[in-house]
């Protein structure tokens, strides 16, 4: 298993990401049928929902890294938590923007308070956006990492609760949801799952990329400090 994992490199991951995403969207546009109720605008579903799912899972992953950071004190877990939240926030921004476009195309308005997923996402995004000023406001590096981890855990516990609460806030009649009622026909489901897999791969690729860049910066800092120390 370990040897199989070591075969994964950033380059191979990136290639796999592109391949799966391309396949997924080809399926979405050429294989999956057009939605009977919503028409062509429903194709945004294959972009918006995978982005949202992966972003939310990303926040959960960050919480797990944060727990491990508090347990071990190893800064590598804090770095992973930070990067997970960072990439998920960017995905979250994409969710909000694509959601607004979907709303405009479906209902003619740029925002719909009665769409529970979109509203929940806004709240989650607003919460995680405070991660950056939080880290910025604490100077001591160890303390900053610890506080950030507590935040990541708290926010991670918050996400599912928030989705539940917003759904409960819906008026019992006339909720306006993007997704049509009932299950997806097989071809749509298949296309969706491939797109979801592609987005998940994209997320992992970007995480890996960010961590590599961070490590390179860190190593450079160490070299510089070592050289300056002897000067």
């Amino acid at each position, binding site marked *: 298993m370990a040897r199989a994992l070591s075969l994964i490199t950033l380059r191979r991951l990136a290639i796999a990401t592109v391949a799966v995403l391309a396949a997924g969207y080809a399926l979405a546009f050429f294989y999956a049928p057009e939605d009977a109720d919503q028409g062509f605008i429903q194709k945004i579903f294959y972009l918006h929902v995978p982005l949202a799912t992966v972003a939310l899972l990303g926040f959960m992953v960050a919480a797990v890294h944060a727990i491990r950071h508090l347990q071990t004190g190893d800064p590598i877990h804090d770095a992973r938590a930070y990067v997970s939240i960072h990439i998920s926030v960017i995905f979250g921004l994409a969710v909000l923007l694509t959601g607004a476009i979907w709303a405009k195309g479906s209902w003619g308005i740029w925002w719909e308070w009665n769409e529970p997923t979109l509203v929940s996402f806004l709240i989650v995004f607003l919460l995680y956006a405070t991660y950056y000023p939080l880290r910025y406001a604490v100077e001591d590096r160890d303390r900053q990492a610890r506080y950030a981890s507590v935040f990541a855990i*708290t926010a991670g516990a918050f996400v599912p609760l928030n989705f539940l609460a917003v759904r409960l806030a819906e008026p019992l009649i006339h909720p306006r949801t993007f997704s049509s009622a009932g299950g997806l026909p097989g071809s749509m489901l298949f296309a969706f799952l491939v797109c979801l897999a592609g987005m998940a791969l994209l997320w992992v690729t970007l995480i890996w990329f960010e961590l590599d860049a961070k490590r390179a910066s860190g190593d450079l800092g160490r070299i510089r400090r070592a050289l300056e120390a002897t000067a």
Partner: protein
Amino acid sequence: MRGFAALLRKDLRVELRTLRSLPAMALFAVTTFVIFRFGLDRTSLDGELASGVLIATLLFAALLAVNRLFVAEREEGGFDLIRLAPIDRTQLFAAKASALVIYLLALELVAVPIFALFFLDSAEGLLPLALILLLANVGLAATGTLISTIATMSSARDLLAPLILLPLLVPLVIAAAGAGEHLLASGGPDYGRFGTWLALLGLYDSIFLLVGYATFDFLLED
């Protein structure tokens, strides 16, 4: 257990003696009611407007309390004392959260009757609303204490605490306002989804008390 009681007693005694936060919070709430009277151009409220005005006002007054939760420790170096004392740090969390609940109850004892006086036609829905507010107070105390601790040790603490806390409190607002909308309805209180809101509040309280209990230690390490 003894540490918890001692810390709580100290906080309450200091507050009663100096009255640093409570009068200001009550005054803030009443003044905010006046602002709403003019902002909404209404002299009587019911249903979702009444619920919204009351919950929003209590929420922002609560933020004042959260911001001031650790002010005594900051000014008098109390944190170092607590770090050295042989008590379980979780007891500090429990003590601070309990103090916050008590402050919020005191605030509501003043603010809610005045709100009823200003805006409500009948006080019928207020007792069940009190139960809702109590549960919401506990949830607010749990997350508020956590975030207040984080903010206290950082720069820009007055801005940071509300910024992080407000999104976290949205489920509480949803539950409290949702219940209030029906309890303060013009035709008399309606208990339609009362159980749902109680359950949501209970879930929120349990989850964040647990998170606070599990992570508070890590905030006080130096």
